[in-house]
């Protein structure tokens, strides 16, 4: 049994500020207990809809930033998708918000001052800046590759330009940076900066592509995945994906407590949404009765 390294807490926080950032909404919430425990890569889960809501499951959001103001605030960035995010987009300063966090396993940081490429897709970029900060504090070099469908969906380009040695932007419609996807430019960036490690957060197809590139260059890659979650604390078993363990056995592991950060090459991206036949406990699989 793996212990989650940080004990999450539930807090009823007050919304401090709300802002729009291009296509995204950002909420800063006073949540001292969460801010104090935060490490880069952590996420929070948020109750949505108010007292008489019909939307019962929490919504997961990566923590974009924590600040010491008011004993500790956390900020997350989101796009409106369904009823939960629509409701969040209507929050105003001084409203209260029920958060649980910090959740998940954060990004592991290298001991040595290596060169790191941080790859972000859509709102996935929001997670990368605290990682960049932590890396730079350890003397690492940080380069960014950020992409999205269009300019208004590339999150944090300015901040990346301020923080990164280099920043490469891509959009699918060519409205900002290079036309194409992050995976189109990533090999060039890795080669140029002689990257030692890749950190990535974004949609699953992007993570698969980024992992493939890193594997080709034979450098480690840490990806933060996104799976449909109901609880965020490891009790509902809805957020699983096939991941290869240290022992070489594929298990359906919970991305909320065993992830969301995984070593990219361990995630069987092609088999996400299936139970691979060789996974531990797969129906009729050879691994039946394996403890």
């Amino acid at each position, binding site marked *: 049994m793996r212990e989650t390294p940080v004990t999450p807490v539930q807090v009823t926080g007050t919304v401090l500020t709300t802002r729009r950032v291009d296509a995204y909404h950002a909420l800063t919430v006073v949540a001292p207990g969460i801010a104090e425990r935060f490490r880069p890569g952590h996420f929070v889960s948020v109750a949505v809809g108010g007292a008489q809501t019909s939307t*019962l499951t929490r919504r997961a959001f990566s923590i974009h930033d924590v600040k010491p103001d008011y004993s500790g605030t956390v900020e997350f960035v989101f796009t409106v998708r369904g009823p939960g995010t629509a409701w969040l987009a209507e929050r105003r300063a001084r409203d209260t918000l029920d958060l649980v966090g910090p959740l998940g396993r954060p990004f592991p940081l290298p001991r040595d001052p290596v060169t790191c490429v941080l790859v972000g897709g859509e709102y996935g970029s929001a997670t990368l800046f605290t990682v960049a900060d932590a890396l730079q504090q350890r003397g690492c070099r940080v380069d960014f590759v950020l992409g999205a469908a269009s300019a208004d969906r590339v999150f944090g380009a300015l901040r990346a330009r301020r923080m990164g040695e280099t920043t490469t932007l891509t959009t699918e419609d060519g409205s900002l940076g290079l036309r194409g996807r992050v995976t189109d430019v990533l090999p060039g960036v890795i080669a140029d900066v002689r990257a030692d490690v890749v950190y990535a957060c974004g949609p699953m197809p992007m993570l698969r592509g980024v992992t493939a590139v890193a594997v080709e260059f034979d450098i480690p890659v840490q990806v933060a995945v996104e799976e449909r979650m109901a609880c965020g604390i490891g009790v509902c078993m809805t957020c699983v994906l096939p991941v290869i363990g240290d022992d070489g056995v594929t298990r359906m592991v919970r991305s909320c407590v065993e992830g969301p950060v995984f070593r990219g090459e361990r995630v069987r991206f092609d088999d996400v949404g299936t139970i691979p036949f060789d996974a531990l406990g797969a129906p009729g699989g050879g691994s039946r*009765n394996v403890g």
Partner: protein
Amino acid sequence: MSVDMRTYLGHVELVNPIITAAGCAASGSELAQFFDLGRIGALTTRSITMAPRAGRPTPRMAETPSGMLNAIGLQGPGVDAFLERELPWLAQRSVRTVVSIGGGTVAEYTALARRLTDAPGVSAVEVNLSCPNIEDRGRVFARDGAASAEVIASVRSVMRYDVPVVAKLSPDVMDVVSVARACVDGGADALSMINNPLGMSIDTEAMRPSLAAVTGGLSGPAIRPLAVRCVWQVHAALPGVPIIGMGGVLTGRDAFELILAGACVVAVGTALFHDPYACLRILRELEELLAARGFHRLADAVGLAHRPPGASTRHRIDLEESSL
């Protein structure tokens, strides 16, 4: 405001009636991060199977109005790993544990029960009857009184006499009372209801079922009216049988509703996903409600809504006609 919250499942005393529902508290350690598991009545494990199971493909979850659908497929480590790691972890911490078991044949349930017989730390065994019977074209045991009774009788026959066997019933039946009666006749010491009714939702963007498994179990407040009705009907028909009530309990009021209908233990499932502290909060709210209404003992509230129209509450409490 001191209410005697003790309750009984057969001869097993629980310090209070609030427990976790099967499959909603993983191995226990996840919730232990948030609170001391010893403070709740019991922890119910996920349904333990013989072999490890990888479960169903994702998506396994879809939100529905005031509820959710799940199709986990009993993912779990199998009984060996459970007995080696999960049960001892709970036993060491003296957590009262209801072990849920799931199987595809009567023989498999029986074999599981046999494995549990000598394991320390098993407070009760809950038989999850909502599993497909592979010997009856995959028809779920719980939908058939005779098949359910056969499983229960066999499990009862191998379990230690002092470990109550609880039959967990499904609402997807024509007549829940007849299945309940069959289980009690088969030897069930207590009944647990309701398991998830079968539901489905369709992703109208993709124009496909939302769940990879197509159908899934519905849980959450949406099903509470079904749970209250099942508990009510079964308690009316079998007033002496302890009932673990569950289905959409979010608050102390909801737990109280099931208790008034006839449950002496209340399990919390989906609410845990929303609020990791749900059990403790519900327990506190329930105790406050009972105190506010002048109850000295939880037991006096069990099934109280069944009293005849004229009868007052006092009357019932004074005569100590509790159904426990």
